[in-house]
């Protein structure tokens, strides 16, 4: 992890984003986000609903240019030579993003259209990643014939198949049952060990953030800022179930719960209890020193 972050893949400096609503009100979505993500690093982003996580990912994906601040990435530098076989970045959206007029297989293929890889390689990748998300039998099905969780797995496979240098995932596993989620987490770790993608992973699930990430970023309630950053002291070849036994895992989990709960409280208008906040900070400090 730390070794992998030897060079920076993504550098955000004071990124601000506002929306102007229909009736002329300004919604501050991001209020100065600064973050560095190392190459091949996995960063999980936690934060209360509406704090700007999806907004941040859209900006990173290049879907929204109307922001202030600077974003430097490998893409801008054109650092990697293998750009033709891997997308610079790919996104798994929070909402259903399958294209309903295409079969599952075509949905994956269209994601590879920007790459210069031959048909055989395309087919190999499609087969491999459909198998990984457990949809090999459904390659000829249309999205409306699938369940919500299956559709989300199609979107995940589509993003993985492009083997992006930067992978942006917005609560990709939220629609799955707890067991499937654990299996998918383990698979994602295995895939990233091979592709060495840089990953920004938005989730509401604190255990999931710890299972997958090298670092966990907690965002404040809207307007979103980075409230705290926590290193996850586990090696990459971890077992997402076994690691839960580890005291460091549980301590970090509690710290993150408190940190996020404070923000949820303030985003819902309830002042956070002072006591809780002190404990939050204390455990936070312990977590940092782990």
């Amino acid at each position: 992890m730390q070794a992998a972050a030897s060079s920076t893949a993504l550098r955000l400096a004071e990124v601000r984003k506002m929306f102007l609503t229909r009736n002329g009100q300004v919604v501050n979505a991001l209020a100065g986000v600064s973050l560095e993500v190392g190459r091949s690093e996995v960063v999980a982003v936690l934060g209360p609903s509406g704090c700007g996580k999806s907004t941040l990912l859209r900006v990173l994906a290049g879907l929204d240019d109307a922001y202030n601040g600077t974003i430097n990435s490998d893409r801008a530098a054109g650092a990697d030579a293998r750009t033709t076989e891997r997308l610079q970045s790919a996104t798994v959206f929070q909402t259903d993003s399958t294209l309903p007029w295409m079969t599952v297989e075509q949905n994956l293929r269209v994601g590879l259209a920007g790459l210069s890889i031959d048909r055989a390689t395309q087919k190999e990748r499609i087969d491999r990643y459909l198998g990984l998300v457990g949809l090999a039998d459904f390659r000829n099905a249309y999205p409306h014939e699938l369940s919500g969780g299956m559709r989300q797995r199609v979107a995940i496979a589509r993003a993985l198949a492009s083997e992006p240098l930067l992978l942006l995932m917005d609560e990709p596993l939220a629609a799955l049952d707890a067991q499937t989620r654990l299996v998918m987490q383990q698979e994602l770790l295995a895939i990233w060990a091979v592709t060495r993608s840089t990953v920004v992973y938005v989730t509401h699930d604190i255990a999931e953030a710890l299972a997958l990430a090298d670092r966990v970023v907690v965002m404040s309630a809207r307007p979103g800022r980075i409230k705290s950053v926590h290193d996850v002291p586990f090696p990459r070849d971890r077992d997402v179930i076994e690691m839960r036994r580890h005291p460091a895992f549980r301590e970090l989990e509690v710290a993150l719960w408190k940190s996020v709960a404070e923000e949820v409280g303030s985003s819902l208008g309830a002042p956070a209890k002072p006591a809780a906040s002190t404990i939050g900070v204390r455990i936070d400090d312990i977590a940092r020193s782990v």
Partner: protein
Amino acid sequence: MTTSPVASDDPATRAIVARTLALQRRQSIMRIVLGAGFPLALFILWEVLARTGLIDQRFFPAPSRIIATTLDTLGNATDRRQLSAGLLVTLARLTVGFVLGAGIGILAGILMGLYMPIRFALGPMVYATFPTPKIAIFPLLIVMFGIGDASKMALVALGVFFMTCMSTLSGVLYANPIYADVAQAFRIPTWTRWTRVIIPSALPAIVTGLKLGLGQALILVVSAEFVSSQNGLGHFIWNSWQVLDIPRMFMGLVVVGIIGGCAVLAGDTLERRLIPWARH
């Protein structure tokens, strides 16, 4: 897909399948019986009213007489040639005008949907001229394209253009924005983006536009042939009316009706083919 064949030896499964099939069968029987039976009942009523003299036989001849005249005409080589020649002429005008109008309309609709300056430039003009009855500018088209086929094709094209352009535009504008996001996020190249993302996402609206356009086209071609033509189905109908050969006129109407029916059928088939993901 692996929908494994249903284990037909399981009685519960078999019962459910049988019940579903029976329901489907009952529905399709009802559709045929009502769809054909209701018009048939109206024809019988018409026949009775005509025979008893309750409606004027001169203008509403009994269906049996129309059928007899039709068979007569179809048996007569000259008449048959006249009708089939008229049909061909009308179909040619219809097809050329439709393809032209639909092609330009769909392209314009997509461009307007995708590029704001084009939308701002063309939008007001399209919306302002849309409500004009197209047949009212037919004289202008004759001035521009002459008295022959070209002006009638232009009229058809104009009518189809508005239907397809406006429908396609709303299809592109109101397509789920996530599709454009996917295209952008995966850097899908322009050509693939158009053919695999933008056009399919607007396809339901495009097909609706095509179906509406087909109806317009038929109205316009027959109207144009009414007022200025020496051939075509419109002329056949109008001419029959002027010489008061009413059964012959009805025959023309029936042929126009059949074209319309075929058009609707073609539209529905197209829809099912092109939009397999929508539930019909």
